[in-house]
């Protein structure tokens, strides 16, 4: 609690100085707004629902893309982690595909899916799959060999081995990859919306800028900061909880 109070000194100070300077006219660029204007823009866009709709649209694409990347990345990563030969065969291909910026696929994705969730989610998935894949390969390789031998000795089927041994044993490390990927998912989704896709927070951001609603633009930036923070906190919580859930059979 005390940390929270101490930590909020700087933001509050900045806001006070900012408000004062813009009221006295010292700060009068077009790119600046007043904290009070930003607050009222935030409040009104929350009240009329436009911000929440845009948030949902961004989340829809980001989470769908993240979900696809998680399924593909974890399954492929688990297989490659278990089979060193397959990993050696695919590794050059992975290293060649990985550095391509996901946003470079925007034109292609637009041709394939048109405007909407599909194109945005596919780009998010491409961006997110790599960190998940690479972290999963490492996590599965680091699993205690004894546990895999226990699974073998019990003649567990491959799906049972994956579900009961491999995923729980690798979960803590895979979860780190998921959290990195979640942050990437929001960044990529908003980028695609700013550049191309007429929906979501990114699109509203560029719309506010073009119609010179600077206060609204700041309000949306602040909002992005809040939801990014909440998403990370939620994933951290899910991580701890599902580890405990895996514990109780």
């Amino acid at each position, binding site marked *: 609690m005390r940390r929270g109070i101490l930590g909020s000194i700087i933001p509050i100070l900045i806001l006070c100085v900012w408000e004062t300077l813009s009221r006295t006219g010292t700060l009068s660029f077009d790119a600046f707004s007043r904290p009070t204007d930003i607050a009222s823009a935030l409040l009104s866009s929350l009240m009329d629902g436009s911000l929440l709709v845009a948030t949902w649209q961004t989340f829809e694409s980001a989470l769908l893309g993240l979900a696809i990347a998680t399924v593909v990345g974890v399954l492929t990563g688990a297989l490659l982690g278990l089979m060193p030969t397959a990993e050696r065969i695919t590794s050059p291909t992975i290293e060649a595909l990985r550095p391509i910026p996901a946003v470079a696929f925007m034109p292609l994705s637009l041709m394939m899916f048109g405007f909407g969730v599909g194109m945005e989610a596919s780009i998010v998935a491409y961006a997110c799959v790599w960190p998940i894949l690479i972290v999963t390969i490492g996590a599965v390789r680091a699993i*205690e060999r*004894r*546990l895999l*031998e*226990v699974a*073998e*000795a*019990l*003649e*567990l089927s491959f799906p*049972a081995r994956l579900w*009961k*041994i491999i995923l*729980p*044993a690798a*979960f803590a490390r895979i979860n780190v990859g998921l959290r990195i990927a979640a942050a990437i998912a929001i960044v990529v989704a908003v980028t695609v919306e700013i550049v191309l896709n007429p929906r979501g927070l990114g699109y509203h951001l560029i719309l506010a800028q073009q119609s010179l609603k600077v206060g609204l633009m700041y309000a949306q930036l602040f909002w992005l900061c809040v939801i990014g923070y909440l998403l990370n906190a939620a994933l951290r919580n899910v991580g701890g909880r599902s*580890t405990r859930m*895996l*514990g*109780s*059979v």
Partner: protein
Amino acid sequence: MGGASVQAFRGQANKMPPAATAARALSVRGLRVSFGAESSGGRTILDDVTFEVGDGAFLCVVGASGTGKTTLLRALAGLVRPSGGELLFDGQAIAGPSRDRAIIFQDYSKALLPWRTVRGNIALSLEARGVPAKDRDAIIDELVAKMGLVRARDQFPGQLSGGMQQRVQIARCLAQEPKILLMDEPFGALDAMTRQSLQDEILQLAEEKQMTVVFITHDLEEAIYLGDRVVVLGGSPATVIETIDVGLPRPRNQLTTREDARFLAYRHRLFDLLTHDQAGAAGLAARSPAREA
């Protein structure tokens, strides 16, 4: 189990030498295990290992550390492929791991699932066997009581002492209803008191369930105390250098059995064998580092 071994016996009847009329749970003939090609730094761990374990018998395997005891046990479990020779269990060639052959690892802390409770760890075997969820609790309760784990039932392995963790591993192996227990220095990392009480418990279990046991140890007294027969591995690559039939009466007793003159004579014999073997292997060991921990 009876049916299976009778069948196996019939199948083997023609090939078996006439002397082998008793039921054989496990038979190892000319076993050879090599890792990698000799040319590329690989080496042969076991060569021409031959012995038999009768149904319901307790066999102990001793040998200096690094001899290949663990490799032998892993071959019996099906975790290591033999490079030559024959491994038969109940008359069938061992081609891979099977729930019929439970292996108990020395490093219990690595063999238990740290994210599952004691109950969950035992349940793993039941899940593997396909026991319906509603029937699992009763079986777990029985095993937990048998292994003295009642109070630890809902704790995680990390919260338990070494001895308790090894009990959990044994309970999990019993839950898979094996025909044979393969134990790899299971009590090697435990303190003397815990080791002795677990020795007596495992003897009682084997007696009660008429279980065949292959027990690896580097502790000669433990081998004599537990076994009906002690097989000594030695040389490099290792082979059976001696087999001792332990003629000590059962049930065995930690005090009287260990004070028996025959016990001491067996111990003397084994000790001589192993010190000679080690003296001979010292030169070899210096050149090829042991793979076994």
